C-alpha cells in the first residue's frame, strides 16, 4: 500500500511539473478584481455623460453610434483610458504576486499567454475600428465582448484553466448584446466589470487566500 502511494506521488509530481512549466500561474485574482473596478469606473463616467446628454434633450443613443460625433469620441477616449488603466492594475497585482512566489513575470509561459490573448484582441480592435468607420457604432460593444471572450478561451491553455469559463461568459454576453443593440453600456459594465470581479474573487479565494 505504501509503495503504491509512492508511485502515485511520483505521478502527481510529474503532472504538477508539466502544468507548472507550461502555464503562467502567477496571474493574480486581485488583477481580475482591479480590472473589474476600472471597468465599472469607466462605465460610471459614460453613464454620467449619457444622463447629462439626455438631460439636455439629445438623442444619446444616436450620438453614441454616430461616427465622428463628440459623444462617440468621448466614449472612445473613456473606453481607451479604461482599457489602459485595467491593464496596468492587472499587471501590478500579478507582478506583486510573482514577486511573492519567486517566479519571473517575463517567463516563456507569460509570453505565450500574452501572445495568444493578443491575437484575438488585436483582430477585435481592428474589426471595431472598421465598424466605427462604416457607421456601425452599435456593433462595437458586442464585438469587444465577443473577441475578448475568444481571447480568454485561447489564452486559457496557457494559464489558470478556469479563465475559460470567464471567456464563455463574455461570449454569451456578446451574443446576447448582438440582439440588444443600444444596451452596450450595461453589457460592458456587466461583462468587463462585474464578471471580472466575481472571477477575480473566486480565483483569489481558491489560490491566494492564506
Amino acid at each position, binding site marked *: 500500500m505504501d509503495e503504491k502511494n509512492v508511485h502515485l506521488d511520483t*505521478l502527481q*509530481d*510529474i503532472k504538477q511539473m508539466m502544468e507548472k512549466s507550461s502555464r503562467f500561474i502567477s496571474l493574480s485574482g486581485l488583477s481580475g478584481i482591479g480590472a473589474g473596478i476600472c471597468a465599472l469606473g469607466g462605465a460610471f463616467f459614460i453613464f454620467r455623460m449619457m444622463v447629462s446628454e439626455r438631460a439636455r434633450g439629445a438623442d444619446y443613443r444616436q450620438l453614441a453610434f454616430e461616427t465622428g460625433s463628440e459623444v462617440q469620441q468621448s466614449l472612445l477616449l473613456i473606453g481607451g483610458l479604461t482599457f489602459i488603466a485595467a491593464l496596468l492594475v492587472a499587471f501590478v497585482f500579478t507582478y506583486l504576486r510573482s514577486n511573492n512566489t519567486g517566479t519571473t513575470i517575463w517567463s*516563456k509561459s507569460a509570453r505565450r499567454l500574452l501572445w495568444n490573448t493578443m491575437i484575438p484582441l488585436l483582430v477585435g480592435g481592428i474589426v471595431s475600428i472598421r465598424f466605427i468607420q462604416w457607421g456601425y457604432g452599435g456593433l462595437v460593444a458586442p464585438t469587444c465582448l465577443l473577441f475578448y471572450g475568444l481571447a480568454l478561451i485561447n489564452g486559457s491553455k496557457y494559464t489558470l484553466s478556469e479563465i475559460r469559463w470567464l471567456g464563455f461568459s463574455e461570449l454569451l454576453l456578446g451574443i446576447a448584446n448582438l440582439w440588444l443593440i443600444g444596451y452596450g453600456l450595461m453589457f460592458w459594465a456587466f461583462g468587463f466589470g462585474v464578471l471580472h470581479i466575481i472571477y477575480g474573487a473566486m480565483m483569489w479565494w481558491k489560490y491566494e487566500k492564506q
Partner: protein
Amino acid sequence: MNNPIEHLNKIFDSRIRLGIMSALLVNEDVNFNDLKELIQVTDGNLASHLKTLEDNQYIKVKKGFVGRKTNTTYSVTKAGEKAFKAHLEALEQMIKKLQ
C-alpha cells in the same frame, strides 16, 4: 511485462531529474534559469542532474546568447522521450499490480 519493476528507469529515481524531464516534455525548450525556478534547486545541483541526463542522451543542450549573457537551453531527445514514457508506463503497471 512480468515484472514491471525492471522497467522502472533508475535514472528517473531522482525527483530533480524527473522534474527536468517533465518540464522538457511539455515545452519545446527550457532555459537553465527557468528550470532552476521550477524545480527550486541550487545551480550546482541542477547542473549535475542535467549532466547525468545529457550523458545518457536523454536531453540536448544548446548554448546561446541573450545580449551578452549566456543562455543555455535544454530540450528532450527522442530517446529521452521514449525512456520517460516507458518509465511512466512502468509506474502505471506497478500501481495496477498493487491494487
